[in-house]
């Protein structure tokens, strides 16, 4: 939250410094952008983050491994399961803890549903960014939230809460899918699939939407690699890297799915990648339900005193493909029941880093289009 050293200069030749955020409808939370404008053209953009910093990494050194998974679900609050999934994977890798096969499939199941729900939020808010709260954007937003609400209702029925499902435990999953819920999941996936053309008609099929996103915020593959953007943002620049394929975790090695890529690297390409991922994920949840193996979902002894779970000395890094990209946990253990050091590799943090490279040259209206297409979640950026 560096306020003072950001130099705000309003020079005589008409350069205007515009403080966008931290309270602004289009900065996706509490991002602050210091924009230097010449007319409406952005000359320089300085992102200022940290307004949502909660010190999770320091808190991790204070809590035991069995307590921590629910804490991380608050980081990336649009796809909470991805956080705890990456954490439990790292702990299991460090402690060589076996995970039952059914639990791996269930983790992927919840993760894919949350990917759909997260992408729906992104599409709706992108609509708000491009169309405004008093226009067609809201209509798209409402359609997206209509579908997302049904996913949250389903997750609530399945796990007890709509968001922070807390379904990942070290060594397995927490809630089991019965036949009735499996049937509901299938029906829901089918019905959301029929709603996708409606969302497309409101967004990608609209000439104004195309005009607003095409050629805006182009990220070349080289820039994307050097800055280290990840997830759909990286894949829209033509780099086909998906953690689910490249470093398979959970059940993804057994699941068939396509890695969606585009080569244009602009906002429209990022939109298309995420939109196609919606369909891919809907296919995946149905595949998972159809092939869900039987067996237990938790292989350890029942939870009791968390201080009893000690990991061997060492280091581990495990990552998952969250809706925003590679979300990794690097754990350094000193042999006790608490992490000695825990570092979260947050995808939004890395994706936001590209903002100063993209905004100069564009108009103020492009700022919100680019930010919306990057899909940053400030809880994930600031941790």
């Amino acid at each position, binding site marked *: 939250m560096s306020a003072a050293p950001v130099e705000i200069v309003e020079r005589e030749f008409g350069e205007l410094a515009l403080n966008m955020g931290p309270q602004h409808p289009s900065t996706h939370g509490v991002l602050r952008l210091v924009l230097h404008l010449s007319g409406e053209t952005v000359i320089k953009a300085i992102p200022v983050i940290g307004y949502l910093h909660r010190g999770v990494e320091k808190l991790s050194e204070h809590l035991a491994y069995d307590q921590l998974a629910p804490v991380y679900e608050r980081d990336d609050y649009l796809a909470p399961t991805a956080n705890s999934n990456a954490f439990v994977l790292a702990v299991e890798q460090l402690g060589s803890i076996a995970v039952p096969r059914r639990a791996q499939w269930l983790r992927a199941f919840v993760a894919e549903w949350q990917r759909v729900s997260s992408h729906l939020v992104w599409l709706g808010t992108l609509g708000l960014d491009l169309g*405004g709260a008093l226009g067609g954007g809201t209509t798209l937003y409402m359609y997206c939230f209509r579908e997302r609400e049904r996913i949250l209702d389903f997750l609530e029925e399945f796990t007890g809460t709509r968001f922070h499902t807390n379904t990942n435990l070290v060594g397995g999953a927490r809630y089991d899918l019965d036949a009735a819920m499996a049937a509901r999941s299938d029906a829901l996936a089918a019905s959301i699939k029929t709603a996708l053309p409606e969302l497309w008609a409101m967004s990608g099929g609209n000439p*104004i939407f195309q005009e607003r996103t095409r050629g805006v915020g182009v990220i070349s593959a080289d820039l994307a690699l050097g800055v280290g953007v990840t997830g759909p943002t990286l894949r829209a620049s033509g780099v086909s890297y998906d953690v689910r394929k490249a470093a398979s975790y959970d059940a993804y090695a057994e699941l068939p799915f396509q890695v969606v890529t585009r080569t244009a690297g602009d906002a429209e390409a990022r939109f298309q990648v995420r939109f196609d991922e919606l369909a891919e994920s809907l296919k995946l949840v149905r595949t998972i339900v159809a092939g869900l193996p039987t067996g237990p979902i938790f292989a350890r002894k029942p939870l009791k005193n968390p201080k009893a779970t000690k990991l061997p000395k060492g280091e581990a890094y495990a990552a998952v493909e969250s809706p925003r990209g590679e979300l990794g946990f690097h754990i350094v253990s000193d042999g006790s029941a608490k992490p000695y050091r825990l570092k979260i590799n947050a995808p939004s943090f890395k994706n936001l880093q590209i903002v100063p490279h993209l905004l100069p040259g564009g108009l103020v209206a492009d700022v919100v289009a680019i930010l919306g297409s990057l899909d940053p979640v400030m809880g994930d950026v600031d941790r």
Partner: protein
Amino acid sequence: MSALTTGWLGAVVLSATVLGVAMTIVAYLTWLERKVAARMQNRIGPYEVGFPHGWLQPLADVVKLIIKEDITPRAADRILFNLGPLLVVVPALTGFAFIPIAKGLAIVDHAYSFLFFTAFASLTLLGVFAAGWSSNNKYALLSALRMVAMAASYEVPMILALLIPALLSGSFQLTEVVEAQRGLWFIGYPLVGQVAFLIFLICALAEGNKSPLDILDAESELIAAYNVEYSGIKFALFYAGEYAHTLAICALAATVFLGGYLGPAFLPGFVWLAAKCLVLFVVILWIRWSLMRLRIDQAIRINWMILLPAALVNVLIAAFWVVGR
């Protein structure tokens, strides 16, 4: 001049009545817009205040806005800041004075009422600029600057489109323009009428600040744009001015393209006028709640590269036609 406006007292009473009715209509237009938008978004819209369907909602909104704290920023230009809302509302409402509601009957039936109307409709933008400039807020300033760019460009094809009815009727008097449509509404004239109407509709979106051309209060970029610093009753005035402005433009379009008060005789003329206004208003809402916003450079490019040449060619064709007739 109509007999209704003779005498000072008569004028005051009439103006007060018209103003009261107009403001009530404007308030209920917000209700209509919220309902239409809600339907398109699969929602219900206002429902609880004035159960069912929230028919008391506009009243509640007005009361809320009146009793809210009225804030003037310390660094604002006080005179312009307080003048802004008035400059928006008054010209927008004045426009209604020129709209004929029956044969030869308008509050002001001037020989050049057509031109007066367009002049008053453009005056609201002055209020917007005053508000944006005087707020001493960077977002409001950007909005005011955008307004200048938008007004300078979209006024031109709009006036050119309005020249078509004037050409075809041979008069700048709105009552005459309506009477000239007895045989065929001007929108029905092949090609010329439809192109002019379409251009006018697009320009009306820009004038009335509606998506996809609501560049100057693009709230996802400029928060609340020129009225970002306004609260309470002044904000309500802006809101009312915006709706009155839109409605006035709808009324003009209904008058010069859709035959105004003309219609089958089983209903009085002003009902036909109101119905046509309402239909146009809902069409504008439909466009507004369906489409996203254009960027300012795109909006202005569309204006200079497409609308203006089309309007010019259209005027040329109409002129040849009128001459050859």
